[in-house]
Structure formats: C-alpha cells, structure tokens
C-alpha cells in the first residue's frame, strides 16, 4: 500500500436559505468531517439602508423604521429610539406614559424570549413542539399588542414624549389573565427542555463564551449574563422608571448555550414580576406630553440605550436643528453578539454550530438594518 487515503476539508454553506439561520444569514464553514475548522459569516442579505433613509424623514416618521429593525421586539426598539429623541430634545415623559412603556417593553421581552427559547429548542432538534408551545403564548401577547396599538408585529406604539394611545378598556384584565398562563408555559419549558437529559448534553459545554471574551467583544444581554457577568442596563443605567421595580438579574455559570437558554427562561419570570408590579401601581394622568409633529430638537447629539431582549440596544442621534436627524445610528445587539460566532463554533461539530447560532438568538433584520 503505497497510497494513503487522502482526506481534504471542504467548504459548506449554511444558509442563506437554511432552516436554522433564522432569516437570510449565511455562514461559510470549512469542515473536516463533522468538525468545523473555519467559519466565515456573510451578512447583508437583508440590508435596507435604514440609517440613511432615516436622515430624510422627520423624527416622528422614523419610529416605524425602528419597528422593522428587530422585528421580534418592535416595542423595545420604539422605546430606545424615543428615549434618544427625548434626550436630544430635553423632553420628559409623564409617569403613566413611563409605566405603560415599561409594561409594553417587558411584554415584548416575554414575546421575544418565547420565540428565542422555542427556536433554540428547535435547533437542538426538539421537533417543533417547544416552538408551538411558546408561540401559543407569544400569540396571546401579540393579541394584547393588537388590542393596544392596532398591530401585532410592527406596533409603532411609542411616541416622542409618551405613547400613542391610552390603554384600551380591559387591557389590565387581559394581561392579568395572560401572566399565569405564561408562568405555566415557562415551567413546562423548564421541565421539558432544561431538565431533559438529551437537551443538557446537547447544550452544556457547547459554544462556551468566557467572561473575558464576552466583555472583550462587548457582548450584552443574555449572551453576557450567560457567561456569569451581572450586567443589565435596567439596573446599571435605569430608564423609564425601572429603578422603581423589584427584579433580579439572572446570570449563568459557564457561559455555554445551556446557560444562555436558562437565563432567558429566568428573565421571562423576572419580566412577569415587573409587569405585575407596573400594573399594580399604574399611575393616572396623561399618557403623553404634547410634542409638535414636526419636532425640531436643538442641535447636539444624544445616545440612549435600553436593555432590549437581545442586549444593549443603543440609538445615537445627531441633530443640526432641523426636522430630521443629521445622523441616525443604531447599535444592534444581535450584530455585536454574533461577533464571537467564529470563536464559539470552530472546533465543534456542525450540530454544535447550529446550537451556537440558536443560542445567540439573532434577528437578521437588526444585523443588516
């Protein structure tokens, strides 16, 4: 036998059309058998030039744009943008408006984490069941959004200086009926997935992000907290009156995919707590301050950040005194959380790469904007 069997690595595309890329996202992986030796991310398939378009529109007209960046958490995006404009124009929001904003943002976090947890379970191969269970509850949250704002996905509910409409009659009852159901679903997810032996071996010690790497890559949200770093903008830099509510920050142990999943489940429990507190003492008064439609903030710059379901969502606005922003920049948590994807996947198998991608919980609309 003079000839030895030759093996060679080959390049494989995961995406842009693939069941597990959660949108049009592409990874070019070089594999040696099942083992990944190199991974190259290719983004931009969903680029819509939002930041440039926003420079041509007034501040109020830009709110619907923010719906369409992270389309799984439009309320949070609205909130982040409105906070930035309010900071730019030195506006204040009445207490009732702030409380409604908190309720909406937390319901949105619940809805988004429902999707994230379900889709992650689907990536580990739990065939559709967790997705369906979580989506059942997500649909109910979207019903409440529809009731409040008229839209399910792209709510466009927040306005500069408050929120667009007063809450509808029966809103509080609907939310209070929903919360126990959500608790039950989270408990089901905990038992079906987090305490499932197969799920544990699939997600534990997979796609580990060390705390140093997480801080170094400026990861935020469940990605950072999964690595054991206690960092939550709602606590560290409170906005919209979050300092009034009693909640805790869940942090993981090892920074693997499993930790990120359980952190998301725990965040959902904490969000339910926040919504209950906000509903209990919902202040009266106006829901919004009067802001002219063609609002012209003084020239200057402002950066506002919130804890979106995926991490630190920041809006950076520069004003030249005109009716539309001179510069409109978004700090998307998904894009920055994805920056460690290569480090998470190289050395693992293809199945691990899918789990790693699922545990980041990306929204491609936000990556490409």
């Amino acid at each position: 036998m003079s000839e030895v069997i030759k093996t060679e690595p080959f390049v494989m595309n995961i995406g842009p059309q693939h069941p597990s890329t959660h949108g049009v996202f592409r990874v070019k992986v070089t594999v040696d058998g099942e083992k990944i030796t190199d991974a190259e991310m290719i983004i931009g398939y969903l680029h819509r030039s939002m930041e440039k378009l926003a420079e041509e529109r007034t501040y109020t007209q830009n709110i619907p744009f923010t719906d369409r960046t992270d389309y799984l958490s439009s309320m949070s995006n609205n909130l982040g943008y409105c906070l930035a404009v309010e900071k730019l124009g030195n506006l204040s929001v009445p207490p009732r408006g702030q409380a409604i904003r908190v309720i909406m943002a937390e319901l949105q976090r619940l809805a988004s984490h429902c999707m994230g947890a379900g889709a992650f379970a689907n990536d580990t191969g739990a065939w559709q069941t967790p997705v369906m269970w979580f989506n059942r509850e997500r649909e109910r949250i979207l019903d409440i959004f529809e009731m409040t704002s008229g839209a399910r996905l792209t709510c466009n509910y927040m306005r500069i200086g408050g929120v667009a409409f007063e809450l509808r009659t029966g809103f509080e009852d609907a939310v209070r009926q929903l919360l126990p159901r959500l608790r039950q679903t989270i408990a089901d997810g905990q038992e079906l997935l987090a305490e499932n032996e197969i799920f544990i071996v699939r997600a534990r010690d997979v796609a580990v992000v060390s705390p140093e790497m997480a801080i170094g890559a400026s990861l935020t949200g469940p990605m950072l907290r999964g690595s054991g770093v206690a960092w939550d903008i709602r606590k560290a830099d409170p906005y919209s009156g979050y300092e009034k509510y009693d909640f805790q920050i869940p942090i993981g142990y090892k920074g693997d995919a499993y930790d990120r999943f359980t952190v998301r489940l725990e965040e959902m429990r904490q969000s339910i707590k926040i919504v209950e507190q906000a509903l209990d003492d919902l202040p009266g008064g106006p829901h919004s301050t009067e802001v002219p439609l063609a609002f012209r903030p003084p020239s200057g710059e402002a950066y506002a950040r919130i804890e979106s379901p995926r991490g630190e969502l920041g809006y950076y606005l520069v004003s030249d005194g005109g009716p539309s922003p001179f510069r409109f920049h978004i700090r998307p948590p998904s894009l920055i959380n994805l920056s460690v994807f290569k480090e998470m996947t190289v050395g693992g198998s293809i199945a691990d790469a899918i789990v790693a991608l699922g545990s980041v919980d990306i929204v491609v609309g936000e990556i490409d904007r």
Partner: protein
Amino acid sequence: MFPLLVTDHWYDLRDLANLYRVILEGLDHILPTGLVYVITALLGFIAFFVIFVLPSQLYVGVYGERRLIGRMQARQGPNRVGPLGLLQPIADALKLLQKEALTPRSADRTIMWIAPILFVAPAILIFAVIPFGPRMVFADIPVSLMYFLAISSLPVIASFMAGWSSNNKYSLFGAMRIVAMSISYEVPLVLGLLSVAVLSGTMSLQGMVIWQQDIPTWMILIQPIAFAVYFIGVSAELNRTPADIAEAESEIVAGYLTEYSGMRWGLFYGMDIAYALGASAFAATVFFGGWSLFGLEQWIPPWLIFILKTYLFYFLFIWTRATLPRLRIDQLMSFSWKFLLPVALFNLLIVAVERLIWTSNDLPDAIVWAFGGVNIILMVGIVFVWSKVFKYDPKNRPTKPRLVNESGGYRPVDLGEGGSAS
C-alpha cells in the same frame, strides 16, 4: 395451554387463512396446480398490503402521526381535506405524483433513480415473516429473526446511494451519518434480540409467539433490558427522534433526501413509515405476545389484537418524536458503544445462565416470572452502576441560573453554596 377454538369455516373471520384457503381451493379446480400457488401467493401478498400496510401507513403513519403530533403541539393537525381531514394522505399522495421529480445536473442519474426503488423492496419483504395469527404468516421459516435483521439493514444501502448520488454536501453528510449509525446500532440490537432467542429457545417469530402464549407471559416483562435495547436501537436505525441525525432538519436540511422531490421523495417518506410499522410489528410479536392476549385471542380475532399492539408500539415512536430533542452523532455513537453494547452483552450473559438453570434442572415454566423479577432488579442495578462508572450525577447540576440584585462585573461561580457548575 389455550386450545384454539377457531374453526375451518370460511366465514370464521378470526382466522383469515380460512378465506384464503377457500379461494385457493376454488382456483385449484380451474387452473393448473403450479400457477395456483403463484397466483394465490401474489394475491395474498397484495391483499395484505392493501388491507394492512397501506391503510396503516396512510392512517396511522401519515394521518395519525400528523394529527397526534398536532395535538401534542397545541394545534389542530390536518383537518381540511374530507371529514376530519381523513382524505389528507390521499391528497398528499396525489400531489406528490403530480410533482416533477427533479434530478440535479451534477447528480449520478442512474443511482439516484434506483435508490428509491431499492428502498421500497425491503419494506415489503419485512412483513413476510411477521405472524398475524396462528395460521396467518407468509413464510414461517425457522430463522425468521435472522431474516428480519438481515432485511431491515438493507435500506441503509439505498439511503447511502441516495445521499451519495445527489452530489450535495448536505446529502453526503446524511448518507455518512446513516451508515455510521447503522453500523453502531446493529450490534447492540442483534445482541438484545439474541438474548430473547436464547430464552425462548427459538428463532422463529411464530415460535416466539407460541412460547409467550404457553407460559403465558409477555417477553417485555421478562426481558426489559432487551426491549430497551431494541427500542433505542431500532429508533436509531429508523432515524426516529432522538436519533434522527441523518435527516436532521435543523442541521443538514433534509439529509440524504435533500435533492429528492415528487414521488421519489414520497417513496422514501412512505417507506420510512413502513419500516417503522415493520419494527413495531416485530416488537409486538417478540415483546408483546404477538397475536396472543392471555386467552382472549379465541374470541377477538388474533390479527386484530396483533394490529392494535403494533399501533400501540408505533405510538411510542410518535410520542418520542413530539417530545425529545436530537442527540449529536458522537453522543449517539458513544452511547451505543459505551452503554448499550455492554448492557446488552451483560443481559445476554444473564439470560444464558437463566436458560441453563431452567433447562438443566427441568424447572416449571412459571420460573420465567422469577427470571423476570431478577432481570428487572438487575436492569436497575446495571444502569445505576454504569452511570456511576461515567460519573453521572444529575443532582449536582444547576438547571436554573443564579440571581443577583445589582449590576456589576463578573461573578465567579461560588462552588460552596449552589453546587458545582459541572
């Protein structure tokens, strides 16, 4: 122990062989002898396929599985075509027939064309040795257990051909995975079934049913380890969850089926269900007493008992599919070689000793109940000891994250308080 009350009248539907015999005798008068056997064999086979396999496939495999999984997933399942959606599988089949079966330009056309055909043939052959009743078995050969094992590993070749010929990287992954998994799981599967054969002293499936009827018992009560090994092994071989890595949708799109479309894909899909039905029928025969039901088979048609048992076992497949996540291939391999194989070997040893004690001392049949008790205790013991060997300790693993009140930097894991993080 239970004499059969079945008569020889053709209208006695407790044994469909009567009807078959009447047809055979009727044909015998008008046709030459040799031809009659060929025709009746074909007739019986087709009738069996039309009466059992096709409806089971359509209504238990396609419709029932989709409907049940729909219910488990908090949704409706197919309910639009016909009453309760009962015509859905037929509509699906018609749709698949109309669709174009694409072949990629770079694919190996011949092999890609042959693969679905090769995949179908063993699915039909499997049912030849399954006993549906006391006299309802096509080929009551003395080594039908070996026959079943041999035939059931044939489709792997067809799957591999499908994956290789498609010239697609996802398909190649699927093909490689299915071959690797089939090789790994065949070994414990054979060992598990061997212990059943050793205990019952026969390799004929009909013989095993009669053995279970005579005791009377079910093999699953006496051989729980063999059943567990069989169930895990067969779900790995059939690509059912949690071992569906060859068609892992979230990883490699559709595995070896990625490039198939139209009825070629339909054949793979349909025959996957037929194999699962075959495995269920085999399990019902070997582990659940086949067509016997503790004497009730004299009044209830035995074939009905058998079919219901098959469906019950098939329900297990549906249930696991709707519940469990998928394992990674290396985890599946190590589970097979490090856990399943030693356990099956140990079980074989125990069963051989038991059989020796039983036959050499001429003990009564009821001794198998004692064997069953011993086996169940040993099963718990083996699983416990083996998990200790691999240092498996579920108590020491947190399933909920830590909670902190204040934002701050990194919080190192406190090993003393909440347990270690491993």
